[in-house]
């Protein structure tokens, strides 16, 4: 009876949710198939074409629309995201591991770490730029911006790992020690394989957050731009559908990342998985 009313309401709600989530992307995708080079970023579609996709890869005859200056910034962003991912995940795993035993001041340190994702990005970026200037340090995407990215993404990796280790059954580690296996080897052979699904999630968080980080990078990165900055830069002049085509491609790239993540996840869950079942018995 109740569900007769509730169900349609929920259905509408979910429909709206999906519309707002994917609406922009759908509009973007449609417009990216606009005719070129005369067609602009608006409806109606004059004629369907893949012109702007070819334009991105320099496969079209030269026209009044300049090619997107994304090549280098894309490489930069990917490199930066990778560096950030590795650093934040390593730090996240190590610090979450430290939090398994209560130490003096652990509460304070916890908030100190989490602060990194709470402080507004503009402030962190600006602050980093000011500190760098005062100390005479040159700003680069791989130095100052990298640091702000780590400060920003490390708390996410930390929280993910904290949640994973929180429900980790420590008796398998004790079992390993009691078989004569030292802690370092125990971590490598027992703990790490079992928390690997969590490590994957932490890596995904760190990578994607860094990859499209804008506000911190804006101030902290110096002369060479990362991809989000470069895209923003093109908006300032004139928008052509090639930006949309590029957006579609990067989104597809993100989806492929997610697919890789999902595949690795199912593999490791199948492999390491049933620790939870062992816990249930206890």
């Amino acid at each position, binding site marked *: 009876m109740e569900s007769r009313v509730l169900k349609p309401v929920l259905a509408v709600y979910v429909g709206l949710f999906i519309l707002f989530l994917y609406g922009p992307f759908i509009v973007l995708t449609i417009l990216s198939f606009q005719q070129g080079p005369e067609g602009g970023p608006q409806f109606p579609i004059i004629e369907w074409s893949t012109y702007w996709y070819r334009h991105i890869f320099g496969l079209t005859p030269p026209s009044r629309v300049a090619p997107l200056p994304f090549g280098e910034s894309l490489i930069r962003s990917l490199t930066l995201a990778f560096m950030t991912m590795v650093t934040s995940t390593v730090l996240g795993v190590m610090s979450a591991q430290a939090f398994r035993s209560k130490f003096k001041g652990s509460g304070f340190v916890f908030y100190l770490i989490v602060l990194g994702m709470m402080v507004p990005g503009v402030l962190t970026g600006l602050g980093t730029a000011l500190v760098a200037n005062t100390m005479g340090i040159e700003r680069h995407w791989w130095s100052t911006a990298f640091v702000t990215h780590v400060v920003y993404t490390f708390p996410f990796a930390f929280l993910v790992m904290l949640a994973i280790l929180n429900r980790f*059954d420590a*008796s*398998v580690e*004790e*079992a*390993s*020690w*009691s*078989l*004569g*296996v*030292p*802690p370092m*080897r125990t971590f490598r*052979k*027992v703990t790490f*394989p*079992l928390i690997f699904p969590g490590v994957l999630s932490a890596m995904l968080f760190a990578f994607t957050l860094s990859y499209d980080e804008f506000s911190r990078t804006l101030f902290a990165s110096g002369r060479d731009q990362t991809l989000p900055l470069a895209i923003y830069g093109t908006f300032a002049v004139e928008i052509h559908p090639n930006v949309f085509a590029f957006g579609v491609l990067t989104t597809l790239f993100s989806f492929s990342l997610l697919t890789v993540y999902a595949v690795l996840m199912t593999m490791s869950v199948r*492999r*390491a*998985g*049933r*620790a939870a*079942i*062992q*816990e249930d*018995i*206890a």
Partner: protein
Amino acid sequence: MTYDLQLSHVGKVYDNGTPAVIDFNLDVEKGEFIAFLGPSGCGKSTTLRMVAGFESISSGDILIKGQRINDLLPEQRPTSMIFQNYALFPHMTVRGNVNFGLDVKGVPAAERDRKVDGMLEKLGLLDVADQRPERLSGGQKQRIALARSLVVEPDILLLDEPLGALDANLRKSIQNELKLLQRNLGITFVFVTHAQSEALALSDRIVVMNQGRIEQISAPYDLYTKPSTLFTAQFIGRNTIFKGTVKHAEGGVVTLNTDHGALSGHAAKPLSVGSNASIVIPAESIGILPANGEEPQNADGTSGFPGEVGSLQISGHIVEVTINLPTGENIVVAGHEDKFGRRFKPGDRVLMVFRSDGATVIGG
């Protein structure tokens, strides 16, 4: 002589100041099967974990084969632990689990394989050696945990409620396997449990613990028949306990004045006349006679007290009779069917009798 395991004045105080284990003293000979028995929170697991090295020792010493091991890390101690949830490595096969401890020790591959195969065979795990433990039964998991621990040849095997996760039927058969295995290997086993039936069935000696202290260390039969503290008397078996004052004491036999008349039992420790004491009578030591108006005799070491049959419960050959006492309490008397027969029905006035050497008098 050197003992396999010695705990000398071992104490554990948690960081917040709560004492968990107080002045624990125990000498264990090689090949003994020792059980730590007590209610949860009594300190038995903490003591075991101190032996394993998972908990620090606040005071006292732990020695294995005469060597002080207080400061050794868990992986340096010649102990191995079995956990209640088995703590198997879910990402390894059964063989991988068993092989894991030998892998680090630098044992040559050929010898390692031989040992692992031998252990898998001994515990009947060869068929499932290449499977992962997750899909195997509780009993099989238990045996994997045993194989994994025994293959590294520890001096002492520590078992923390190892049967707790098994269902009742399986528990019985694993219990027997465990006992046989321990006999064959001759390794010292230290076993923690809160189930007295396990402790009584398996161990050579039982350490009864309560609130961090040892209450009694005895062989199972002695523990059952000669409890030395009131806690043990209440915790082990099904005893009738009456409080009273000492009327007279001579030659180890003490007579108490109780609400149920003068009752005699043997005393573990000397008691002075007039002091408070309790008499502990095991349910199995009590016989029932029809009351024929005669006062209970205290002659030839037999005591008796009156009551009324409340209800009878027959389970197989054992009859459990609930007796209502004049004081309003009720007690349970158990015995073979042929002992009680079908002589009594609810409402019968009866006399409970027991021999003084079947009852124990404890101060307090």
